């Protein structure tokens, strides 16, 4: 091809990392800008709305806690789809996507845990309760950390790490409903009745608007970071391939001399 076209026509064209990089370079400033605008708007809304008569000011924690918790689950779904992409369609970008998403998912889960804990202290009087939701999010956090540990342990062979990591992601994905169900069962057995349930009253539209804006902002934030982290991962793999070629070339010259 003398005249390379970088246009993406089909979804499968994304499989070409160079085209993907070109698309990322084109798109990411827009995504980042839109994310910033949405965050500005969402933060304005979350502090402009009234506090709840029961929960007071702390209801504002909800505007970051709920979107973070939502992202912690969505990120795992993104990883599961990527794992399918690796194992079934052998899409070359799928394993890059899964690997780049794991630290992001862990961080959003950490945000959800910390803000949940900070919400729990004034509401329940304790930093942590073994509530069904908190517990399952905590287990999810452990699963993210396990995946990151696996990726780090197999850092010298990223393609194999991606393949077996994909198996692990899918096994975890199948298990998430079981873990959720079992934690809820366990919780109803041991739950002291005094704990305030968060999902009791329906959410007032007053709170729903900032919540929605913040959720969209968080989601866009995640995707911006995700494509940028994928770009870094592609570059990292290119560098290691180049290094290997260079080392081989040096070895060949050495044997010639």
């Amino acid at each position, binding site marked *: 091809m003398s005249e390379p076209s970088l246009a993406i026509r089909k979804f499968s064209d994304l499989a070409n990392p*160079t085209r993907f990089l070109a698309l990322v370079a084109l798109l990411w400033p827009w995504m980042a800008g839109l994310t910033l605008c949405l965050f500005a708007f969402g933060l304005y809304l979350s502090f402009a709305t009234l506090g709840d008569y029961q929960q007071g000011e702390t209801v504002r*924690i909800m505007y970051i806690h709920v979107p973070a918790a939502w992202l912690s689950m969505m990120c795992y779904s993104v990883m599961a789809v990527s794992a399918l992409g690796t194992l079934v369609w052998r899409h070359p970008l799928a394993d890059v996507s899964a690997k780049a998403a794991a630290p992001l998912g862990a961080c959003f889960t950490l945000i959800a845990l910390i803000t949940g804990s900070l*919400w729990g202290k*004034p509401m329940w009087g304790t930093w942590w309760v073994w509530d069904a939701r908190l517990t399952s999010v905590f287990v999810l956090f452990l699963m993210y950390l396990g995946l990151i540990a696996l990726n780090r342990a197999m850092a010298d062979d990223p393609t194999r790490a991606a393949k077996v990591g994909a198996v692990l992601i899918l096994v975890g994905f199948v298990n998430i409903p079981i873990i959720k169900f079992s934690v809820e069962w366990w919780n109803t057995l041991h739950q002291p009745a005094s704990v305030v349930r968060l999902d009791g009253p329906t959410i007032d539209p007053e709170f729903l608007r900032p919540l929605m804006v913040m959720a969209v902002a968080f989601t866009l934030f995640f995707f911006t*970071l995700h494509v940028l982290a994928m770009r870094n991962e592609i570059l990292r793999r290119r*560098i290691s391939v180049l290094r290997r070629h260079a080392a081989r070339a040096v070895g060949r010259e050495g044997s010639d001399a």
Partner: protein
Amino acid sequence: MSHAFYVTLSYLSAFGIALGLVLWVWLDHRGRQKELARLEAAGIRRRSAHSGEAQ
């Protein structure tokens, strides 16, 4: 302690973690770019670098 304290603390911690992520992505990118530039300067480049096509 007042509720505002918890609200501020949770917003700050979320902001801190988000900032950490942005910094990680940004610094990672800069490091990789530099590494590529160094390899390029050493005369090591991708076979397909001129055509812009991967293999």
